[in-house]
């Protein structure tokens, strides 16, 4: 078939008339498809709340992601990841609250992550436990004049570091050389002795609750009431077997009590999902169901150890041979906190303290 040039252009014009607008629509609609990406997964975009700050919306799989970064969790609360332990941050018109400060040597990156959300001054630092990757940035952040993170501040009061008195006691305890291994500027400036401390900041009630003898004897969990976000410290992680530090006063009973106390605070939105979000000491953003799973694990491990140690009276080696942590070994055992280490810790507790 031969088409005259004039007729070809006529046909082409008809093609353009019909097809090009459709191509255009497709292109525009492809851009529009980025919009649902912000909605996140599942119902109601709940998952999206945890991902909105990560720059993944719009389907750009290759977007560069900083290793230390702030992730929006809910309300006024963000989670800073990649700097050791998870750091919780509440930001608002009055400034910034930090729960923990990360590992030593990471503070510049942490401050950059904070500035990506707020240029406001850091007014409070709450320390959840004496563990180094939680308080490693205290010495720098607690010494920021006016809590300023931008380098443009005019000075002012230092951030107020609040922690339980037992944590202050352990940080200030002299080492072999007679000096504390922690610089004094990084010690809590306010060590509370009661079971809880309350702070009102950025239009939000913040509860600091002491959980005795859990991960250590100086643990604090922090609940941001209006944001409905609970910060657990190392009492709960998604990466490790229960971190019971007996040398620092931790016990399995205290851990279980603390996990149950957190379950009493956390509420699901619907069908055991969403609602209160929990920032664990390490790992991903969680909700009550994840906390339940972890509590159940420790409960079952305790029951198994109790049977082997206090009922069957097995030796430590016999207990290990019985694999009382089977079911969670592959998921949680890490070189720095192994199955054997937890078994040994629990064995000592149940042998030495008698009643688990």
């Amino acid at each position, binding site marked *: 078939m031969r088409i005259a040039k004039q007729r070809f252009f006529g046909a082409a014009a*008809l093609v353009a008339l019909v097809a090009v607008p*459709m191509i255009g629509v497709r292109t525009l609609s492809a851009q529009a498809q980025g919009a649902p990406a912000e909605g996140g997964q*599942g119902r109601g975009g709940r998952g999206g709340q945890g*991902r909105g700050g990560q720059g993944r919306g719009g389907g750009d799989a290759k977007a560069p992601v900083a290793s230390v970064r702030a*992730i929006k969790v809910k309300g006024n609360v963000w989670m800073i990841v990649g700097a050791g332990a998870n750091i919780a941050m509440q930001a608002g018109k009055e400034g910034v609250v930090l729960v923990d400060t990360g590992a030593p040597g990471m503070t510049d990156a942490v401050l950059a992550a904070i500035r990506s959300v707020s240029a406001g001054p850091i007014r409070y630092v709450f320390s959840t436990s004496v563990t180094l990757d939680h308080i490693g940035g205290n010495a720098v952040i607690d010494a920021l004049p006016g809590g300023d993170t931008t380098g443009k501040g005019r000075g002012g009061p230092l951030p107020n570091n609040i922690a339980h008195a037992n944590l202050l006691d352990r940080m200030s305890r002299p080492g072999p050389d007679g000096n504390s291994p922690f610089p004094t500027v990084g010690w809590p400036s306010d060590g509370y002795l009661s079971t809880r401390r309350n702070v009102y900041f950025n239009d939000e009630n913040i509860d600091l609750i002491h959980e005795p003898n859990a991960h250590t004897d100086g643990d604090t969990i922090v609940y941001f009431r209006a944001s409905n976000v609970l910060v657990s410290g190392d009492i709960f992680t998604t990466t490790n077997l229960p971190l019971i530090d007996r040398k620092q006063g931790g016990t399995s009973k205290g851990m279980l009590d603390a996990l149950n106390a957190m379950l009493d605070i956390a509420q699901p939105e619907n069908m055991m999902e969403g609602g209160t979000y929990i920032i664990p000491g390490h790992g*991903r953003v969680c909700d009550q169901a994840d906390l339940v799973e972890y509590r159940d694990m420790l409960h079952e491990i305790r029951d198994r150890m109790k049977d082997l140690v206090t009922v069957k009276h097995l030796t430590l080696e016999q207990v290990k041979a019985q694999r009382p942590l089977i079911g969670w070994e592959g998921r949680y055992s890490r070189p720095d906190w192994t199955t054997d280490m937890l078994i040994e810790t629990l064995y000592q507790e149940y042998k030495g303290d008698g009643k688990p």
Partner: protein
Amino acid sequence: MKLTRTDQLTAFCLAAAVCMVGAPPASAQDIVGAWNQPGAGGAVIAPGNGPGFGFEEDAEERATGPYLVDYLGLPLNDEGRARALSYDGALLGVPQHQCMPHPSTYSFWGPINLRIAEDLDDNLNVVAYHVGGTFRRADRTIYMDGRPHPDEYAPHTWAGFTTGQWQGNTLVTTTTHIKWAWIRRNGSATSDEAVVTTFYTRNENTLTVVWMVHDPLYLTETYTHSTDFVPAPQVSTATFGAPGGGAAGGTFTQCFAADETVRPDPYFVPNYLPWANPFVDERADKLHIPAAATLGGAETAAPEYQDKLKRTK
């Protein structure tokens, strides 16, 4: 300018060819609508709301659930088996466990009136499918726009995060970010590292769904299962949540946790020591097979395993 009929035909073909670039793949099947498991009609879950779900296959799973310690055919490893043996059914009486929906590792196996909807863009391309109707509505959204899965810090959900693409006549989806859950309703657990691959294939009036559970922590190999659905325009997913909809209707989509028994210790977690589960022989005795068979493992899924059982009798 006047175009001849030949010119108009040429233009139409050219336009059609160009438009095809923006059209869905020719192989994409229409899976949108209401579906039900075959055999529905006898079971009326919610009076006045039409028939409920089908019992033609997997009846155990769509009613009271399977026997305890019946892991036959599940490729459990030692860790997965230990988790399963620790399970005490009384756990479902603990308020924090009462409202758990069926997770994506299991949901197509349970009672279900499937309803699939789609989100379209301005050019009628499918941006996402929504799969609803599973027990307690852990609805699954299947993103078809090529977006990546969330990273390691994103929350996990019962439904997980799903992306999909058409491969020939089959919609193939991948689900990640699932919570700790189960693979059968007798304590056979799946971990939060489980990934589910699901295949949706429509052949005329049958929608076949095949799903594969990959769990590096609890399974030695992929666990595969399938189920069929038939069109059921008369069945509404509202069956599952009809107000006052019979004994089961409301509980399928609505759940309010409460203390149902007197619990001296409100924090008690019912569980068995994995080495002392009292039901370890129950199912095996009923089937007159060795207890080792009901403890599962990849070998127990193979047809040859029946010959092995016969030889051991």
